[in-house]
């Protein structure tokens, strides 16, 4: 009885802190991995320890950071281009009915073309170069950004824009301070989905037609059947993306949502 109370107090305290739960979940994942690896005893599933050793070894003495940097650069470039073009087209199509009717067919075509087809066509048409790679990734993401932003533009509260009109606010200020803030939640949603989709496509693009980057290396490890290195490179990339999520996207989102009642 007395024991129970102490136990409950401890569990209550432990689970109150969401960080504790997160750490527990992470430790559990590693444990499951470790156990499975020990059971399988094969190169196909290396243990966490092996992967970690290769990870640090390659990071310090190998080319990991170079390839990681190249891939991140491509992600950043393709992301920026896709967001800019997608947002611009989304706003235009959301506010101009005729333009929307005009471009909607093209948009649906692009939205439903498999990523692989776009990548192959870009390489065939533009050659196996950087421009083709970035174009292919951007083209894959633009239609998704467009859908979200167009929806956001249609949901704009005209009454707020009317305030800008009666107080004779300049066109630029009306756009930046009265229009765009209403779109922020949609832009953030597009960005979040964008990053995760783009880095996956970047890897495919690298695998098919570049001679550097994480995707290129993964292909190499596949051919050499070096699964431990494959794990290590994946780990490096996932680590960076988690960092991007927690250190960049979440803080921006928190800042933009400051006004919302909790």
């Amino acid at each position, binding site marked *: 009885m007395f024991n129970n109370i102490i136990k409950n107090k401890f569990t209550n305290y432990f689970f109150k802190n969401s960080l504790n739960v997160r750490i527990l979940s992470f430790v559990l994942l590693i444990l499951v991995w470790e156990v499975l690896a020990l059971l399988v005893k094969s190169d196909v599933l290396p243990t966490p320890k092996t992967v970690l050793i290769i990870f640090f070894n390659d990071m310090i003495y190998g080319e990991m950071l170079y390839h990681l940097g190249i891939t991140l650069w491509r992600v950043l470039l393709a992301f920026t281009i896709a967001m800019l073009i997608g947002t611009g087209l989304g706003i235009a199509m959301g506010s101009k009915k005729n333009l929307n009717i005009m471009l909607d067919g093209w948009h649906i075509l692009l939205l439903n073309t498999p990523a692989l087809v776009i990548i192959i066509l870009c390489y065939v048409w533009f050659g196996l170069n950087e421009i083709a790679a970035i174009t292919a990734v951007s083209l894959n993401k633009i239609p998704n950004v467009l859908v979200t932003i167009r929806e956001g533009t249609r949901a704009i509260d005209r*009454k*707020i824009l*009317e*305030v*800008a*009109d*009666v*107080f*004779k*606010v300049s066109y630029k*200020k009306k756009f930046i*301070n*009265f229009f765009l*803030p209403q779109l*922020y939640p949609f832009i953030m949603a597009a960005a979040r989905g964008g990053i995760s989709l783009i880095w996956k496509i970047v890897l495919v693009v690298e695998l098919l037609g570049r001679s550097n980057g994480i995707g290129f290396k993964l292909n190499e490890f596949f051919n050499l059947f070096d699964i431990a290195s494959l794990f290590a490179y994946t780990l490096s990339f996932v680590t960076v993306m988690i960092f991007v999520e927690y250190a960049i996207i979440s803080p921006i989102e928190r800042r*933009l949502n*400051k*006004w*919302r*009642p909790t």
Partner: protein
Amino acid sequence: METNLNKNVIKKPHDLFVDIITKSYEDKNQNTYNNAIKNMKFVIPQGELCCLVGPSGCGKTTLLNLLSGLDNKVEGVIKYQDGTIPNDWPIGYMFQEPRLMPWLTVKQNVSIVTNQTSEEIAHSEKLINEMGLIKYMNAFPSQLSGGMQRRVAIARAFVNKPKILLLDEPFISLDLTVANLLRQMLIKLWENQKNTIIFVTHDLREAMYLSDRILFLSKGPSKVIYDFKINMKRPRKTEDDQMENLRIELIKKHPEILSGKI
């Protein structure tokens, strides 16, 4: 119909002349034009607080849109004594709802419609202070009550020192105590700035408490059917025998005046 077009001996540059021959709307369903306003003619001397009272659907909002320049498709003239039009000068506007930007603080909501020079920001702060909201300068609208949000909207309406202030039933759906407080605050700011105010309402008591003069409008197509002067000293009391007698007398003389008939 009586106007004080000729009786107004001392002319001021911003006496407002309104002479609308017709204002019509295209009815897209029936492909016809509906007249919202017809032969509406009145003069509002500079610095007068004038209430417009009429039945619902009498085109009051249409008239305000014409005065504010949101809508300029009209057959007729709306101009100041000096030949300029209201849209050439700063305009203050208060809507039925507060229409604040939820993502801006109280202070930003007021100053956003100015050019945000240091003087204008200081003036915004001064007005917010006069509205009794100094503690809420950096609060977001969602943290304020409905009455407080309207106080912010009043401050915003006055912040550009407008020549003319248009108010479209701004105190509707508030409880009596709060509405009375806001009316007092409105009068206080108006007495400092001496802007011309056009206040639309369907509440005769409210009109009598606030205004120098009430223009009664007919049902659509709307025109002025009665021009009623109120020569009572300020500050007025919200519950006042003299005012109540005046109101009863008016209703006795013209029992259907509030439904737009005389």
